[in-house]
């Protein structure tokens, strides 16, 4: 919708064509962009999606839509369209719920909030002024400090608003600095939050806490690290989930169009790095922070299908070696080579995307790698180098795809997911020569290595495209302002 409105603002009249199921979403986006009466033309979703596979099948859909398309282009604007009403600001006053007793008041509160779509479908803790005040004791940061704005509607995230949602999630005040840092990561200007907030793709988030605060607040980083039963893990993730709903003003099938929903929708993949068993300094050190710091890393990751969480090996049933699991990692990441042949400028094919990879090593695996002489940095460099494809091994289709990828990146004007960042273009150009090797991961920084899980444990892999609307889908932020823990102050 933003593109349509850009053109309208430049004085060009047009229409936005969309399937009927997305009309509500499009109208909502039109309001967000200040042009509520932009012309929408819908085609029946049941007829479009299946028939677009061939020109023959989809032609009747186009024929049926033609009169409406032409009408939308030439019919003069109605007075209502030409002079849309100014949009009112939503009043966000405190809410009062009255009932005969405490139990009924709690029921009524939940009915109201969940009915208003101010929750995640599970019962909530009422954010009374007293509870929010208590939550705010967890941070020295002022309640009205603005952390950023939340896509898609750019709701303002203040420390107080985050605290309100943290109360609702059932979090403790000592978790608040972690939740604020996670939101800082997601709201960073470079982080592409818009895409995972609205897309039909059902991606989700990974939230990893590194450094001493994780242990201090009782986060699980051992057996069951992604599961239920750990208040810190579960409510930190849930608080972020509620912030994304309430501060971004999103709702499933209204403007969050994830077709299958987002995996682990209530808590996301929230866990801590297992520093007790890790042979290396915390992950955030490779991001330039000090070992004694505490940080949160947020990352958009796939939910289902090829992008789903992968187990590379480990566990208590099958025998494994460090080398065998490393081999599985290299094989899986190396499989992204498929993108070369699939790449075609102007075609949004997710098989043609080079992805970032988050590898969560279980402790025994990390110790084994250390014994083999790897550091976190040398391991990611090893995976980056090993998965590069020698120029001489590329077939004609792959060569065409990589060349087109490089050319499209130079020309620009396409989705960032299908482009190389400018600083990586020379690397690919150099690789396209005899003796060169084409990377399947854009940069070694796109291989992110964490250590978590128990003994025994599994080595896991999560992946996702680097970005779409902005250049990053991965950020690490320092936890600061904590008042109730020794770490994160």
């Amino acid at each position, binding site marked *: 919708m933003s593109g349509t409105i850009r053109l309208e603002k430049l004085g060009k009249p047009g229409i936005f064509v*969309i399937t009927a199921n997305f009309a509500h979403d499009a109208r909502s986006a039109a309001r967000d962009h200040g042009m509520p009466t932009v012309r929408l033309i819908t085609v029946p979703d049941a007829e479009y999606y299946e028939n*677009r596979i061939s*020109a023959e099948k989809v032609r009747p859909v186009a*024929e049926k839509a033609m009169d409406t398309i*032409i009408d939308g282009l030439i019919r003069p604007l109605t007075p209502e369209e030409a002079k849309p009403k100014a949009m009112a600001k939503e009043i*966000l006053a*405190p809410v009062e719920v*009255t009932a005969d007793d405490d139990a009924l008041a709690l029921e009524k509160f939940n009915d109201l909030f969940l009915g208003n779509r101010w929750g995640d479908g599970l019962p909530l803790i009422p954010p009374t002024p007293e509870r929010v005040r208590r939550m705010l004791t967890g941070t020295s940061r002022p309640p009205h400090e603005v952390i950023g704005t939340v896509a898609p509607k750019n709701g303002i995230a203040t420390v107080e608003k985050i605290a309100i949602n943290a109360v609702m999630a059932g979090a403790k005040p000592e978790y608040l600095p972690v939740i604020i840092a996670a939101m800082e990561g997601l709201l960073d200007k470079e982080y592409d939050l818009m895409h995972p907030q609205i897309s039909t793709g059902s991606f989700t988030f990974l939230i990893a806490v590194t450094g001493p605060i994780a242990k201090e607040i009782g986060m699980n980083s051992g057996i069951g690290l992604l599961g239920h039963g750990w208040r810190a893990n579960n409510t930190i993730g849930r608080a972020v989930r509620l912030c994304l709903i309430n501060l971004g003003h999103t709702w499933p099938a209204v403007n969050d169009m994830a077709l299958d929903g987002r995996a682990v929708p209530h808590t996301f993949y929230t866990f801590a790095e297992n520093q007790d068993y890790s042979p290396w300094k915390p992950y955030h050190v490779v991001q330039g922070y000090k070992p004694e710091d505490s940080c949160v890393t947020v990352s958009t990751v796939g939910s289902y299908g090829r992008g789903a969480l992968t187990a590379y090996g480990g566990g208590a049933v099958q025998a494994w070696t460090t080398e065998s699991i490393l081999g599985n990692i290299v094989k899986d990441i190396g499989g992204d080579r498929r993108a070369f042949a699939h790449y075609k400028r102007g075609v949004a094919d997710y098989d043609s995307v080079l992805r970032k990879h988050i590898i969560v090593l279980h402790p025994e695996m990390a110790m084994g790698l250390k014994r083999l002489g790897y550091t976190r940095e040398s391991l990611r460099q090893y995976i980056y180098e090993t998965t590069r494809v020698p120029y001489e091994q590329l077939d004609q289709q792959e060569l065409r795809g990589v060349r087109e990828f490089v050319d499209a990146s130079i020309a620009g004007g396409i*989705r960032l997911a299908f482009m190389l960042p400018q600083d990586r273009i020379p690397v690919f150009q150099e690789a396209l020569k005899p003796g060169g090797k084409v990377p399947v991961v854009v940069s070694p920084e796109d291989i992110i290595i964490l250590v978590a899980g128990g003994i025994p444990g599994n080595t896991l892999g999560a992946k996702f495209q680097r970005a779409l609307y902005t250049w990053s889908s991965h950020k690490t932020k320092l936890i600061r302002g904590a008042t109730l823990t020794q770490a994160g102050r």
Partner: protein
Amino acid sequence: MEMKRRWIWSLTVTGVFVVVLLIGHLPFGEGWAEASVTLKVLNPRGEIEPPQTLAPAPRVTDLAGKKIGIYWNGKQGGPNFWNAVEELLKKRFPTATILRRYGPADIGAASATKLAKEVDTFIYGVGD
């Protein structure tokens, strides 16, 4: 006699007081008893500054002889639909020129400025 009257009066007043007190606590069901708990909660929604409202551009009156842009974000199968739209437009408006452009869902400022210079009107699709 006076003592007895006072005694009866005090007993009546006490009795009425006790009855009133009891009525207040009897379970007469919803609507009878006064609500006794008010829960005040803070609003969890993020404040939004409403954008300035703008109107769409005035329409062209006819497509004959016009340059019509079709912008598409590249999702698979879409070109089959837009090829048909292009063909049908040309059939109805043989003097119109159709320009096909591909790019991200949001065309972006630079490409929008370029396209706006090239067309009189446009059709914009993003596949869902």
